[in-house]
C-alpha cells in the first residue's frame, strides 16, 4: 500500500495522477483501465479541491492498494474537510437532448459507471472514498 499526500488544489491534479499511474504501471495495468481510473480519481480529487475546505485548501491523501488474484486496485481518496457523500447525489438523466441537459453532474456518474465498486465512509473526521477496479481486460 502506498500513499501520496498533497494540497487539495486543482493545480495538483497532474502530480496526483502521476502517482496513481506509477502504481498501476508497476503491475502492467491495461491502458484503457488506467484511463478509467484516472478519470475517476480526477473527478473525486477535483471535487475535494472545490468543495471540501471552506477556508483555503487543506490536505488530500491518495492511497493505492494493489491486490492479486484477481489483480485489483483499491484507490482511496481522503480529506478532512466537511462531511460529504458524493454518491448520495441522484444520477443525471443521460437520455435528455442536448438543450435539456444540465452542464454538470456527470463526473460522479462516470465514476459509478466505470468502477467495479465505489464506497464512501466518514471515519474519525475523514471523508474516505474508495474506488475498486479489477485491472484485467474483459
Amino acid at each position, binding site marked *: 500500500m502506498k500513499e501520496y499526500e498533497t494540497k487539495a488544489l*486543482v493545480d495538483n*491534479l*497532474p502530480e496526483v495522477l502521476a502517482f496513481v499511474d506509477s502504481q498501476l504501471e508497476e503491475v502492467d495495468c491495461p491502458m*484503457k483501465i488506467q484511463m478509467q481510473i484516472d478519470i475517476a480519481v480526477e*473527478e473525486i480529487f477535483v471535487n475535494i479541491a472545490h468543495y471540501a475546505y471552506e477556508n483555503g485548501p487543506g490536505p488530500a491523501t491518495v492511497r493505492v492498494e494493489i491486490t492479486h488474484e484477481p489483480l485489483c486496485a483499491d484507490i482511496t481518496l481522503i480529506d478532512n474537510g466537511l462531511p460529504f457523500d458524493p454518491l448520495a447525489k441522484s444520477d443525471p438523466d443521460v437520455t435528455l*437532448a442536448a438543450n435539456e441537459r444540465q*452542464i454538470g453532474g456527470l463526473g460522479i456518474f*462516470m465514476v459509478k459507471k466505470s468502477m467495479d465498486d465505489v464506497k464512501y465512509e466518514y471515519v474519525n473526521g475523514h471523508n474516505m472514498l474508495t474506488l475498486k477496479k479489477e485491472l484485467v481486460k474483459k
Partner: protein
Amino acid sequence: MDIKKVLDNDTLTVKIDGRIDTTTAPVLGDSLSESYDSCKNLIFDFAGVDYISSAGLRILLSAQKIMSKKGEMKLINVSSDIMDIFEVTGFQDILTIE
C-alpha cells in the same frame, strides 16, 4: 493538450491532441469562445485525444448547445476508448460522431 484551428469558409476544424481534463478543458473552452462568431459549422478532430473527463464533456455540451442554434457540429476520428465514455454518459445521442 495542443489545439490547432483551421477555418475554411464557414467551417472551423479544431484538432485536439492530448488530454482534455480539469486543468486543460478551460483552455479549450476559451479557445472555442474566441471562434464561435467566425464559424457556422464546427468539426472536432479527436484523432489525438486519449482522455476526456467530465470537464471536457461539459465543454462539448456547451459547444453543442451554441452550434445547434447556428449550424452543425460533429466529431471525427473518435477512438473506441473515448467512444465508450460517450456511450456511458449518453453523449453519443447528443453529439454527431462520424
